[in-house]
């Protein structure tokens, strides 16, 4: 479903010299599977997720990324979203003055329109929103507040998952969705995520901790270090990392 081949990326930001962040990432996520990506701070995990979502400034210098056979890198971010790419941000952005519901409804309808589907009616939207908020144990008043503004770290993460459940994407990239969540929230959010697991969806879960993977069982685990995947394996790889740390692995790969 998602196919990355020798993906290399350079970061070009105004006022800073260009930097190579990804040094050839090759990765295939078949439909229906969940892959975890782990790796030390600064190894390029978020960069990979931004690259796949099309954040301006993050450009692939070579290699390719295909989603359902289509060249992802050639598309505008909103076109990727309409194809079903959803990124749960490591640091969700605050948007003052725009209530959550207004935002999500505008996004949902924009996606539907670009797929040639009819817009969702207001009552249907409300019904769906209410059901999902309930499932995530969210205070419905939260959805009337401006997007992410003044939300706690955990609330923001929960709101990302709310949006994911509302938009029902096909490729879900969760960038450290577990950070900031308390123990109960972690379980609730994971249940929400698991509910979306299906044979026609795929998922990339970026995390530092095994405890998330206890809830969202990955099919494969990859270790990213210095912009390269240095190890891949089954769920047991994550357990090994938890007890041994990255150093041994990196030394072995070096």
């Amino acid at each position: 479903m998602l196919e990355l081949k020798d993906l290399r990326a350079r970061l070009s930001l105004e006022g800073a010299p260009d930097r190579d962040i990804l040094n050839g990432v090759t990765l295939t996520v078949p439909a229906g599977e969940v892959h975890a990506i782990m790796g030390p701070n600064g190894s390029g995990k978020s960069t990979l997720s931004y690259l796949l979502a099309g954040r301006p400034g993050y450009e692939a210098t070579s290699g390719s990324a295909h989603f359902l056979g289509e060249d992802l890198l050639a598309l505008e971010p909103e076109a990727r979203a309409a194809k079903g790419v959803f990124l749960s941000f490591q640091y969700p952005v605050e948007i003052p003055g725009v209530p959550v519901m207004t935002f999500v409804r505008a996004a949902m309808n924009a996606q539907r329109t670009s797929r040639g589907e009819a817009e969702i009616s207001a009552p249907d939207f409300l019904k769906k929103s209410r059901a999902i908020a309930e499932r995530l144990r969210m205070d419905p008043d939260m959805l009337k507040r401006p997007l992410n503004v003044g939300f706690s770290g955990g609330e923001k993460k929960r709101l990302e998952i709310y949006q994911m459940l509302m938009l029902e994407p096909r490729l879900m990239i969760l960038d450290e969705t577990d950070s900031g969540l308390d123990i109960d929230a972690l379980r609730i959010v994971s249940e929400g995520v698991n509910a979306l697991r299906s044979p026609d969806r795929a998922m990339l879960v970026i995390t530092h901790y095994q405890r998330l993977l206890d809830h969202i069982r990955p099919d494969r685990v990859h270790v990213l270090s210095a912009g390269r995947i240095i190890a891949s394996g089954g769920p047991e790889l994550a357990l090994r990392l938890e007890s041994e740390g990255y150093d041994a692995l990196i030394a072995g790969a070096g």
Partner: protein
Amino acid sequence: MPDVKENIEAGTIEAVRGLEADRYSEGFVTDIEQELAPRGLTQETVRFISAKKEEPEWMLRWRLDAFERWQEMEEPDWALLSYPPIDYQDAHYYAAPKNASKYKSIDDVPKEILDTYAKLGIPLREQEVLLGVEGAKETAAAARETPRVAVDAVFDSVSVATTFKEELARAGVIFMSFSEAVREHPDLVRRYLGTVVPPTDNFFATLNSAVFSDGTFVYIPKGVRCPMELSTYFRMNARGSGQFERTLIIADEGSYVSYLEGCTAPMRDENQLHAAVVELVALEGAEIRYSTVQNWWPGDSEGKGGVYNFVTKRGDCRGARSRISWTQVETGSAITWKYPSCILRGDDSVGEFYSIAVTNGRQQADTGTKMIHLGRNTRSRIISKGISAGRSNNTYRGLVSVHPRASGARNFTQCDSLLIGSSSGAHTVPYIENRRADAQLEHEATTTRLSEDQLFYARQRGLGEEQAVALLVNGFVRDVIQKLPMEFAVEAQKLLEVSLEGSVG
């Protein structure tokens, strides 16, 4: 030669329309026979206008005095605006559809004019209003729930129709064109005219005092809550003409009125001058809410044509516990020079100013407010949101002044500017003068651009770039939009979107 029919240079209009047509949908011209004052401005022009309006002698005197003073005044140059010198002799100071003053009922109003207002979304037939703009499809029950709005429609220099006059009269509310009021309620007009904006207040107000054409007069009697929204739609149609309307609203003790002003003009490749004066008087315990959606033709993207909007608007909270609030959405005009103000004379009176000013293309806006605290425990609040795109310049200019008698005065000011693209300018020029130790004044201002992170976040969720910008801008101006009457909030939001089209990417 008063009844010259102006020929419209179809070619030019078409060319301009081609450039901007999708952006400015109000830019069409109504083809109707015009009556114009001869080009130029002399005592004779003033007499001509006064005669056309069949005014009493005192009104003519008032105009002539103003004209005399105006000739000695100099055009102000302190605003952050630049435009070529205006030739005040090169315009018509009066333009009216032929026989306009004779319209006795709505049925006499020519179809072209009714169509013009219908096209602008402003129904002038009361039954249409009752049924909603969409027409008879809606049920009568639903129609009763839609808020009704009484309209005074000013077409160039004359008021062509005023709706719901009778129903309002039953509540004791006087709502009519200014010209009619001069004839029918001369005592009220004389008592209040020029008491908030004196005839010699400033260059443009004085010009208006000499040549004002038409506008709206409103009087709300003691204790009356005006049963519906009142509004005036100004339409500049004639070529080479200016519009100089005069509005006077008096809210007597304990009364309430909400008033909306809308303006549009055709696309012309020349600059049209608009110099209006609005005076509000709120007596003890009265409240006036004045909202403006200003969408005069801004000129094309190269800065050709567009309305020069030099407006003096001032409210006088004359009585204790009175309240005046100005809400404005300014998206049009090539040049905007406008400072709706409040004189907080009565103790415990409240003044508010909520503003959204959008400039794009080569537009220039210098706008803000003055809050003059004279009475005790007077309070004021200023929220200004400026958005600059294209190669435009947008300035907030404001004054908060607390006089020695104004014990316990309070002001809060928030000015935010948003820059879209790197060729525009955003400026903030507040003046704060405090002469009371127990007054408390707070002023905050920020200037930022649309954040790349926010844009990307919205696009990641599937919104197109323009839509994402519109959404973010709507968030930016939300505090102010919420102050508009419901039915205009939607219109204002659409207008913002249209004004900012093509500002990114």
